[in-house]
C-alpha cells in the first residue's frame, strides 16, 4: 500500500491532552492577568508585539496548543486505516475546505478592517474542527450501519 503520511493511532490522545492542558493554562493566565488576553493573535493596530512577551507566550500556550492538538487528532490514523477510511477522510477534508472558503468569502464581503482579523483567527482552527466533526460523524454512521453479523 502507498504511504499515507498520517500520525500513528495513539497520537490522537496526545492531541486531546494538549487541548485539555490549555484549559488550566488559560485559567491560570486569567487569574494572573485579570481582564488580560483572549485567544486572538497578539496584534494591536499600529503596535508591534515583542516576541515572547506575555501576550505572545499566552498565544503560544493556548491558541497554538489547541491548534497542534486539533491537528494531531485530525491526522492520526484510525485503528484500521483502510481504503474506505481514506476515502471518507478525503471527503470530509473536501467539505471542510468548502465550508472554510464559504466563511472566508462571506467575511471578505461583509466585514471590514479589524473584524477581518477575527475571521483570520477563526480560520486557524475552523477547518480542522469541522473536518474532525464531519469525519467522526461518518465513521460513527459507518460503524452503526455495519451491524455485527
Amino acid at each position, binding site marked *: 500500500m502507498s504511504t499515507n503520511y498520517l500520525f500513528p493511532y495513539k497520537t490522537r490522545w496526545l492531541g486531546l491532552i494538549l487541548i485539555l492542558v490549555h484549559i488550566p493554562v488559560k485559567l491560570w493566565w486569567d487569574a494572573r492577568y485579570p481582564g488580560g488576553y483572549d485567544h486572538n493573535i497578539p496584534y494591536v493596530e499600529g503596535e508591534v508585539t515583542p516576541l515572547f512577551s506575555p501576550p505572545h507566550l499566552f498565544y503560544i500556550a493556548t491558541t497554538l496548543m489547541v491548534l497542534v492538538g486539533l491537528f494531531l487528532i485530525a491526522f492520526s490514523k484510525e485503528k484500521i486505516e*483502510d*481504503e*474506505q477510511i481514506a476515502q471518507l477522510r478525503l471527503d470530509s477534508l473536501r467539505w471542510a475546505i468548502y465550508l472554510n472558503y464559504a466563511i472566508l468569502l462571506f467575511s471578505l464581503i461583509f466585514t471590514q478592517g479589524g473584524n477581518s482579523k477575527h475571521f483570520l483567527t477563526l480560520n486557524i482552527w475552523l477547518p480542522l474542527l469541522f473536518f474532525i466533526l464531519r469525519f467522526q460523524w461518518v465513521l460513527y454512521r*459507518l460503524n452503526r450501519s*455495519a451491524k455485527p453479523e
Partner: protein
Amino acid sequence: MKNNIRVERAIKNMTQEELANQVGVSRQTINTIESNKYIPSTLLALKIARVFGKPVEDIFSLDETDLK
C-alpha cells in the same frame, strides 16, 4: 457493481471479520462492499478474489447502472 462475496463466504463458512483480516481491511469495509455501498479498489478486489481462489470476474460483475 454487484458482487457475491456473501455467497462465497457462506461456501467457505467464513465471517466478515475473518475475510477482513485476510485482506487487511476493517470488517465495516467488507460489510459495505457486500451491501454494494462501497466499491473496492482493484487491489482489494483482487485480494478478495484470491482468498476465494477464483478469478475476480467470478466475484464482482458490472450491473446495468454501470453501463450507462
